[in-house]
């Protein structure tokens, strides 16, 4: 274990003798690859999970904030980059506050729908208007309490941008008959990446919104093709065997849902790969290689296992997912990882930090 803390990165191209007098054409500096590794184990996590669920039940949900911190700490501590674990430093109380607010808002929304549609629409409006603000607060919270090698991440809030891309931009979607949707998603990812800081450097999001279009077009084609296929099969069967039974209709709904599920997994894997791939931190890049097919198999296995075990396979499912994600993420670095420094713009962030403490919350978006 001790050794891996200082695991030497795999060297790229070989080094040059320092005293060479021959002037060579400029060579790109050797790139090093650092792996993300996940060491969590299902059996170990199951014990943590079940004890925390039981305690949350016995305390009528109050302990769930402590449970969340323990879970996060377990997953962070077991995720290592270049042999060094990540660190989750949040305290449970702000999380409890955030959960109480989220619980009230969404619970009220769900109940209101049964009694008065007008009231539900008002609550929906309130949630919609609050959403961009909550997203920014959540990102700030998450970044501030995530740390690696003793340095914390930071998310610079820009509420105007957040409202632009998480609220007003959605008006473009119906106006463009849906064509603006990938563009809006791309802007959202760009906003999230661009506002993050680590080690005194800024994240930059490269590429253009055009990169997101093929993914969404393929997904739409997938759903469309699936529905056509299912309709043809069902039509043929129905004409042969007459009016379909209740069983058959449930099965049909399941089949159509499966098509949506495949499209959703495809989008999730491609967009994650693109987003990681287009993020840059002062020359450091990420490489995400999630496979849509692998991920679909993983999610499907998780869902079946969770249903069959009445939820007891949840820890196993969560560990499997974290393992797969870590195994398909790499850091491609132009230099070693020792030169990141703490942020020094204290004057700019002082007020922000104070405000943060007042409104600290995490609603787990």
């Amino acid at each position: 274990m001790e050794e891996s803390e200082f695991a030497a990165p795999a060297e790229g191209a070989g080094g040059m003798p320092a005293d060479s007098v021959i002037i060579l054409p400029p060579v790109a500096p050797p790139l090093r690859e650092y792996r993300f590794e996940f060491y969590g184990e299902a059996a170990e996590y199951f014990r943590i999970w079940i004890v925390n669920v039981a305690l949350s039940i016995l305390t009528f949900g109050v302990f769930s904030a402590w449970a969340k911190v323990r879970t996060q700490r377990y997953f962070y501590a077991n995720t290592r980059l270049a042999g060094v674990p990540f660190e989750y430093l949040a305290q449970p109380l702000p999380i409890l506050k955030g959960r109480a607010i989220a619980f009230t808002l969404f619970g009220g929304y769900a109940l209101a729908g049964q009694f008065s549609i007008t009231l539900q629409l008002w609550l929906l409006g309130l949630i919609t208007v609050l959403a961009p603000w909550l997203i920014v607060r959540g990102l700030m919270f998450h970044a501030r309490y995530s740390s690696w090698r003793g340095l914390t991440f930071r998310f610079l809030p820009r509420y105007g941008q957040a409202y632009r891309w998480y609220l007003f931009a959605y008006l473009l979607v119906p106006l463009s008959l849906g064509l603006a949707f990938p563009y809006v998603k791309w802007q959202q990812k760009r906003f999230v990446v661009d506002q993050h800081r680590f080690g005194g450097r800024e994240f930059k999001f490269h590429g253009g919104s055009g990169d997101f279009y093929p993914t969404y077009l393929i997904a739409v084609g997938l759903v469309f093709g699936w529905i056509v296929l299912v309709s043809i099969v069902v039509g043929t069967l129905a004409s042969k065997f007459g009016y379909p039974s209740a069983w058959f209709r449930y099965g049909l709904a399941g089949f159509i849902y499966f098509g949506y599920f495949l499209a959703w997994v495809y989008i999730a894997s491609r967009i994650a790969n693109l987003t990681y791939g287009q993020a840059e931190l002062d020359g450091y890049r990420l490489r995400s290689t999630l496979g849509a097919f692998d991920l679909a198999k993983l999610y499907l296995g998780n869902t079946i296992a969770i249903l069959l075990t009445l939820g007891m396979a949840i820890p196993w499912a969560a560990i499997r997912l974290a393992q797969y994600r870590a195994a398909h993420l790499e850091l491609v670095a132009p230099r070693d990882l020792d030169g990141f420094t703490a942020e020094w713009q204290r004057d700019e962030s002082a007020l922000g930090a104070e405000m943060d403490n007042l409104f600290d919350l995490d609603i787990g978006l």
Partner: protein
Amino acid sequence: MSAVDAVFFDGKVSLPHRVRVSGVADALAIEGDGWRRDVSLGKVRVTTRIAGTHRTLVLPDGAQLQVRDNEAVDAWFPRRNRLEALVDRLERHATAVAAALVVTIASTAWVVFFGLPIAAEHVARYVPESVSERMGEETLGLLPRFGFKPSQLPPDRKQRLQTAFKGYVEGLPHADHYRLLLFQAPEGVGANAFALPGGKIVFTDQLIALLKNDDQFRAVLAHEIGHEEHRHLLRSVLQSSGIVLVTALVTGDVGSAGAIVIAIPTFLLHSHYSRSFESEADEFAFASLAAHDVSPANFAQVMRLLQKAHPASEKGTAYWSTHPPTLERIARAEAAAQEFDAAHPQAEAPDDD
């Protein structure tokens, strides 16, 4: 005390330093490559112990120490994070884990099968009449969208039904809030009746056409009034919302398995609740009919008529069915009819065609 290995980060640069740490009285001695730092134990923040993961010690200036030796850290800070130290011990203790499993399963099952229904019953009692009224109005407003059309029954038939209806509800505690509404149902609904909160009882033309006499109408009516008197729709809504909440709480931040993990238990339990409501409404109907001098045998006859009209719907008597098996309901209605006959020896048995 002997020193343990640790990794030190100064909080300013991402460079790791290999150090040795030891507890010296009420301070921590950190020894690096040619340097030494002493930090008072009281000024150090410690993360809690979780499984075999490392501990992080945050020093007052933001520097961090990552220590893998959990026993050493616990020895330096014996009185820190007592709550979470206890939780950690539970997590590592096989008996505690087994107990947690039992607590989780037992309390979830209790909440789902007993707690929620009881809670919903109590809450429903405190929901003001105006709210039920609104709920009923909302649903009523949606009916045309599902293909419900104004009733095509001849006016005199409607009049007779309304008279029978008024005569039946007269003796009830909320007699004045009951109303009979008639609709022509779309294809998929067919012969059916249902109660909306606020005392609106809906019959479809198709069902009226199926019924042979007014007593059969009263039999269905009594069942629907049972739903309303027990506030079943309101309770069903409350219980289903509760299920979504419980499932979401237990599954927590899985995020992986998707909506289906919540949807399937919600659906199955909704059916479970629905069946117990149907039985409750049946029991109410048998008693109410007897009180109106109508034999529950009429109920059994209607069930047979419906079974004949919708033969396909009787295949699914499994767990996901929203109604108890028809044969079971008929048997119970006939048992109630026998009791009725015993109590009314002179009453004429309705003719069973």
